């Protein structure tokens, strides 16, 4: 048996002691619930394995599954577009005042929780909300012509508003770290600013954009407050369905099946993320 003195001087013991808290945390808070959820999704109430929960989930919520994929994918695309536009302007903008104002403003939504963002959007996007009041006030529309955006559009707007700063922060940082002379060199060779953004900058910051968008995709897949507060009608997102199955019926089987489907969706993008990380040498 190893003596206590030898144990104290064994590097492997110390290495394990250092990573043990992280391992325990991951095991208890991630692997165990994930495994438990997956097992529950495939378990019948009377015992044994079954696909019944998945069949029921697809019967009842296939529209919501599609809705979730479309909403989150559309939001991801729009987030990418706006993040690139913000990062591009911060990198290539020639008006120092506009750049300074944008740099100061664009990060604000980062510090606002989803539930608060959803509440803000409810008051902003409703039929008689601030947005329509402004439009009516400016004479662009009559009060009767206004419409509520508290549907799928509201979810997309909230997700884009909330997540764009996060991706823009990553993208703008990556763009700022590029060799400035490469941008000037392209300009010197005759490229317009939009062409520099598309042909010179984006190919070099593409890994950062992909990582930012994947992380946003996963975050949006898990948000409950936004769809439940903005779009209570059907179709809605899977997080709302899961909450409903549990709160209304105590139906953990179908809720776990829906959760497992969410895992699969995020698993696909996580695989892209990990592959990106391996290509870069280490995932950020």
């Amino acid at each position, binding site marked *: 048996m190893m003596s206590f003195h030898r144990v104290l001087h064994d590097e492997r013991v110390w290495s394990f002691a250092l990573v043990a808290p992280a391992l325990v945390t991951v095991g208890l808070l991630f692997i165990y619930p994930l495994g438990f959820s997956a097992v529950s999704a495939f378990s019948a109430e009377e015992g044994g394995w079954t696909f019944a929960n998945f069949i029921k989930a697809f019967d009842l919520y296939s529209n919501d599954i599609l809705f979730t994929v479309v909403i989150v994918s559309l939001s991801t695309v729009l987030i990418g577009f706006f993040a690139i536009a913000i990062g591009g302007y911060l990198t290539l903008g020639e008006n120092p005042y506009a750049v300074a104002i944008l740099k100061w403003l664009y990060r604000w939504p980062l510090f606002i929780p989803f539930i608060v963002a959803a509440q803000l959007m409810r008051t902003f996007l409703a039929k008689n909300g601030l947005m329509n009041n402004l439009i009516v006030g400016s004479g662009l529309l009559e009060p009767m012509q206004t419409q509520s955006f508290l549907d799928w559009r509201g979810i997309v707007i909230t997700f884009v508003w909330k997540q764009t700063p996060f991706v823009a922060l990553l993208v703008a940082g990556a763009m700022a770290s590029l060799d400035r002379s490469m941008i000037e060199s392209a*300009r*010197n*060779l*005759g*490229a317009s600013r939009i062409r520099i953004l598309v042909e010179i900058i984006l190919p070099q910051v593409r890994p950062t954009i992909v990582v930012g968008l994947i992380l946003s995709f996963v975050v949006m897949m898990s948000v409950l407050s936004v769809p439940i507060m903005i779009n209570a009608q059907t179709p809605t997102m899977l997080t709302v369905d899961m909450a409903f199955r549990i709160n209304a019926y105590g139906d953990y089987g179908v809720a776990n099946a829906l959760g497992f489907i969410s895992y699969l969706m995020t698993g696909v993008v996580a695989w892209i993320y990990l592959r990106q990380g391996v290509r870069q040498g280490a995932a950020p």
Partner: protein
Amino acid sequence: MRKTFADFVAVDDVDLAIPSGSFFSILGPSGCGKTTLLRMIAGFLQPTSGDILIKGRSVLDVPPNKRAVNMVFQHLALFPMMNVAENVGYGLRRRGMPREDVAKKVEDALARVGLPGSGTKRISQISGGQKQRVAIARCLVLDPDVLLLDEPLGALDLKLREHMKVELKKLQHEFETTFIYITHDQSEALVMSDRVAVMNAGRFEQVGPAQELYYQPKTIFVAEFVGDSNKWRGRVAAIEQNRVTVTTAQSGRICGVAAGPCSIGDDVEVFVRPEAVALSRDGSTLQNMANQMDGEVVSVLFNGAASRLLVRARETGDEIDVALPQTGEFNDLQAGQSVSFGWSDAQTKCFVIG
């Protein structure tokens, strides 16, 4: 031209004309304003006042992507996601040239810079010197009126730098494009340029051919910055025509030529090139020289053809840098040995301080 950043004057009323097809260098220490000047010519900065004319036309209102001026950047700024041919053809594609014409011009440009058939190589697959040539070809293929070069040899090792100096000069002759080259390395400027401007604190101290800057510096800064010199501080004791006698702080006496008007009693700085100092074992060959001293070798600084001796003057204790003649006559000199040395007054420049 003048360029200020808040209270800081980066370029202070610089006025110059560069003949078409010449190799013009701007030489100065870091922070002297030479990069700012170059960036104004390229269009990346607007002058606070003044004008830039290329072929007689003002280009101030022409954005950088429309100016007939191309620039080779300090770190070359080649696009890593493109291969060599795509890099060289980038500017041509921006001009909307048909693909076949681009390919032909790119191959021609690569051949002219000594890289035929390298178009498909990735940037990471070519050497530092080849990258240099790709960066130059990428600009020259656009047939610019002016090619700006921002210390492009700075990142190369010494041997390659020496080689590229010659290559750049050859390329400039071959393409007959006006080159404006900025550097803090005097040897780059002196070797390649038809004319050199020495810049200090935002101003041009002197503009002229390399030989003129080296042999007839007009200011203390140019005398000190261009080439190596022995320097003394002293006071003018006598003047005869433009010949002056200076008493140095160490009570030595040096005869030289005044670089400008001066009077007896003026404080001056005196400069003598190491290669202007002649050595003698017994002083017999120095009799015609206005300045003669006896001394002792402090150390031999061997550097091949550029070897030097550090000699301490016996009378004043001054340490003087002397170029070691390459005739072989003094190859046996060692520290501690006595030597005589001297130089003519014509090769001694005196500048009034202030």
